[in-house]
């Protein structure tokens, strides 16, 4: 018997491999959905997908979490090269350009136009900034999926201790500095504060810098002239202000990791942080107090930058799959579902009408300040839509933001260096 064991094992392996083959139920269209929603976000997403699958017996959405956006982008690009992409996936704007150019996507416009039940009055309910962000050369290629905004978090208790009103968070960056000075305290008198006004990670500085640039009338880049614009005097002022918070006023420090400022905020070391509207969902397990959430401070005018991904349909799908994909996308972005999604994750609902739903109404009651934070969407601006921004982001973060924040270069020198590199990329590709 033992002699035959190897053969038996081989037989078993082969049998199990056969079992792994595609098992498609008759009459059911299966579509794969690659995403990067982990933790509490993934839970909410899976719940909604489950609901969709139950309500639509002819379709089955197979959701696969890739863990991180980096992994997701790698898997998408590799699968497109190899010719077996998923049916639908989350995509960032700067990936989309490459995918459109590579002929990998089906414009959602096409699927939408074929559907008589989805007219312009439906689209009019979507926040315009989302539609603009998904339109490339007058065609709606993708649909908004998980869209976020920056948010200011603050510790109400520390506000009270410092004699500040916990219901009026700072509205301008100057007020922010003012508050931060009052909130920075050296309690044990050893010369270094044990309570800080604020703390940044380098990616946070990057986000604040972009917001400040827009708020003071600046721009990141000009797509027509193919030119980087962030090294303008407005940009230099913005970055110098951030550097001053650390160096001159000593009310802020720079953290090491990407999310350490959140941990430090939860631990009560920092009074205010700029995070993302979804950070609350992630910080929740660590928090022992209920933080204030508010729109981020403003400059000369109100502006913030939208973050988060869109959803795309890949060309290699069959007509039946495309139809099913559109059905899912339409359902997911419909008022009740986008409200549910927003309630479970804190992402901004993609439709205006969702704000009136009882689901979100309850949530706004529960978390004071959340409605105002979400309403930043009224003056939000989309991410630059060009492939060069993929690398441009990196240059800005590495050469300008990190360099200046850590005191290695001046804000002006760093920004000019990053702009020069981005200009080179912009001129190279469309």
């Amino acid at each position, binding site marked *: 018997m033992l002699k035959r064991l190897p053969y038996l094992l081989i037989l078993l392996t082969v049998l199990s491999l056969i079992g792994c083959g595609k098992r498609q139920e008759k009459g059911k269209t299966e579509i794969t959905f690659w995403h990067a929603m982990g933790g509490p976000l993934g839970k909410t997403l899976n719940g909604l997908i489950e609901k969709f699958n139950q309500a639509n017996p002819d379709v089955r959405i197979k959701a696969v979490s890739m863990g991180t956006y980096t992994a997701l982008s*790698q898997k998408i690009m590799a699968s*497109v090269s190899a010719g077996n992409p998923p049916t639908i996936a989350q995509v960032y704007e700067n990936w989309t350009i490459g995918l459109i150019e590579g002929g990998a996507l089906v414009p959602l416009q096409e699927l939408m136009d074929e559907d008589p039940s989805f007219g312009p009055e439906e689209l009019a309910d979507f926040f315009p900034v989302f539609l603009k962000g998904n339109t490339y050369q007058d065609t709606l290629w993708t649909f908004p999926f998980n869209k976020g905004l920056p948010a200011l978090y603050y510790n109400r208790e520390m506000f009270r201790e410092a004699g500040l009103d916990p219901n009026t968070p700072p509205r301008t960056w100057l007020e922010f500095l003012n508050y931060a000075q009052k909130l920075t305290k050296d309690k044990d008198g050893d010369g270094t504060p044990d309570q800080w006004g604020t703390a940044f990670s380098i*990616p946070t500085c990057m986000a604040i810098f972009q917001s400040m640039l827009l708020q003071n009338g600046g721009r990141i880049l000009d797509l027509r002239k193919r030119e980087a614009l962030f090294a303008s005097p407005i940009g230099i002022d913005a970055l110098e202000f951030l550097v001053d918070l650390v160096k001159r006023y000593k009310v802020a420090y720079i953290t*090491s990791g990407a999310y350490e400022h959140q941990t430090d905020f939860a631990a009560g070391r920092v009074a205010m942080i700029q995070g993302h509207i979804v950070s609350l969902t992630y910080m929740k397990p660590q928090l022992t107090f209920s933080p204030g959430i508010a729109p981020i401070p403003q400059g000369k005018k109100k502006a913030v930058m939208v973050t988060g991904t869109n959803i795309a349909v890949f060309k290699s799908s069959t007509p039946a799959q495309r139809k099913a994909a559109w059905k899912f996308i339409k359902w997911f972005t419909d008022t009740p579902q986008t409200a549910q999604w927003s309630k479970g994750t804190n992402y901004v609902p993609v439709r205006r009408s969702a704000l009136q739903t009882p689901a979100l109404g309850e949530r706004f009651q529960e978390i004071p300040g959340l409605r105002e934070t979400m309403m930043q969407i009224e003056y939000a601006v989309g991410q630059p839509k060009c492939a060069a921004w993929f690398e441009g982001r990196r240059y800005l973060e590495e050469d300008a933001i990190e360099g200046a924040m850590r005191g290695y270069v001046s804000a002006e020198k760093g920004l000019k260096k990053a702009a020069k590199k981005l200009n080179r990329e912009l001129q190279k590709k469309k």
Partner: protein
Amino acid sequence: MKVSGYRKRLSPLFYLLPALVIIIAFRLLPILYSFFVSFFEWKLKRGAFVGLGQYKTLLHDPIFWKSLLNTAYFVLGTVPTSLLLSLFFAVLLNQRIRAMGAYRTTFFLPVITSLVAVSMVWKWIYHPRLGLANFLLGLIGIKPLGWLNEPTGIFKLTANSIGLSIPNWLGGPSLALVAIIIMSVWKGLGYNIVLFLAGLQNIPKQLYEAARIDGAGPFRSFRRITWPLLSPTTFYVLLMTTIVSFQVFTQIYLMTGPPVGGPQGTTKVIVYYLFEKGFDAGFDRGYASAIALVLFSIILSLTLLQRKLVERKVHYG
């Protein structure tokens, strides 16, 4: 049964087949394929043939040169240190003392620990405020260092601390890169120790006895017996450590940044740059393949050079 000559010659091939198939499919063909890819404009799909165009762009890419310099710093920092330290510990661990197994295990533990886990732990060790490294420095009265956040060159830092000033280009590897080097040496030490231990135990004991009778002290017998007879092992360790050091990636990816390769790009090594270009931003397969082949040629020529120059001194028993 008589086996014909033909079959006799073929049968080893048959046994080698499983390994060969894997090596050819997953090593050789991809190498050849990336050669092919590097001659094209290749983003998502194959584009125009550009000949040596990618290589030409590479020559004028300052980040490529910087990543090459960072890699060179890493190799120069890791290889000699690892070689000397592992030889030193191997000689110590080759003694007959009590609980030797426990010591050997201790040195080998980092090797079998996952590099990802080790990277996370060392990231904490280097944490500016909460890390063990700065705590230990504090005990001997040294001010906390920025470690992984410090882009200043190590020579410049040293010079600054004694009041000298040297230009940036003479600054050497950043403290962040040195921190990665320290961690990498620690991680790889056990493996090299085991190799050296095996080499040491191959040296016949009679030689040492004879040397002792002839009046040679421990240093003399190390120089005259151990060092020459150990040279095949030393050569192998040198070769392998050099190759592995050129390919450093994981610890850089996990420990530095954000943005990875920071601070100020001082830990951006060649393999990470390849990854960044090919898989992280831009998906420029053509360019990334060109980088891969440059790295391949560098390692190949260095290995050949080492064989030519160093192997002459190797004493194969």
